[in-house]
């Protein structure tokens, strides 16, 4: 990927992005869906999936929650 393409990808914003508040509010529901069927999670909560792909901190929280579920349950 060239410099312009990388910049374009970084600047690209998706209007479906639900933002951090909504993503965090649904994180436990989304995490259980992801653990069972990632495709279904993205389909059912497209705006959350878009946000988690764009927001590093929220994505990190999802990864941490999945790790906790795998370790403890």
């Amino acid at each position: 990927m060239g410099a312009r393409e990388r910049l374009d990808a970084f600047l690209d914003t998706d209007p479906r992005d639900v933002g951090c508040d909504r993503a965090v509010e649904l994180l436990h529901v989304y995490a259980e869906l992801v653990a069972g069927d990632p495709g279904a999670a993205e389909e059912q909560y497209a705006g959350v999936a878009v946000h988690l792909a764009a927001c590093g901190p929220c994505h990190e929280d999802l990864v941490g929650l999945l790790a906790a579920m795998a370790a403890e349950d």
Partner: protein
Amino acid sequence: MGLVADPDEETVAWLRVLDREAADHDDGLARLHERLLRIARAELHRRRTPIAGPELDDLAHQAAADAILAILAKLDTFRGESRFTTWAYRFVILEVSSKLGRHHWRTPTATWDEDRWETLPDRLGVDPHEQAEARRLVEVVRDAVDGTLTDHQRAVFVEVVLHGVPLDAICARDGTTRSAVYKTVFDARRKIRAALVANGYLTDAGREG
């Protein structure tokens, strides 16, 4: 507490024991705390924070204790959309994020006497061999930032994108929310892109909004 689905057996057991009237309430709280502390420690290690030793363990204890308080305060809002444990673990993960954001400012940082625009190509993963294009990229983005963003958007964009300051650290310092900081950067990205499309550096083919 209205549940949207029949809870699993473990969820029923946790909800029973977390009832303040339960005879084994204190034992239940202790078990939950022990589990949250274990998760906080694991999460802090997973995030590869430079914090170590007693300070790291102290952060884990703080995260677990604050998560317990948040869980008890919000127990009435649990609707059974997930298992209770998944819902509860979310609180301690969020507390870890928050604690790390606050801790960011305890580490001495260099004085920012410039915006560090030269770091932008690296942060975007631009191939070092594309030096000429990288210089042009910095120039057009800088012009767009100076020409289209508000002072607040510019300041946050520079901190997050050029200096790599975590969103949660800005939240902790400014007393704002992650959502508000994210929205500021989101709007900045959208405005910069629109400016770069307008000046022909980027194209808008096949895009909406």
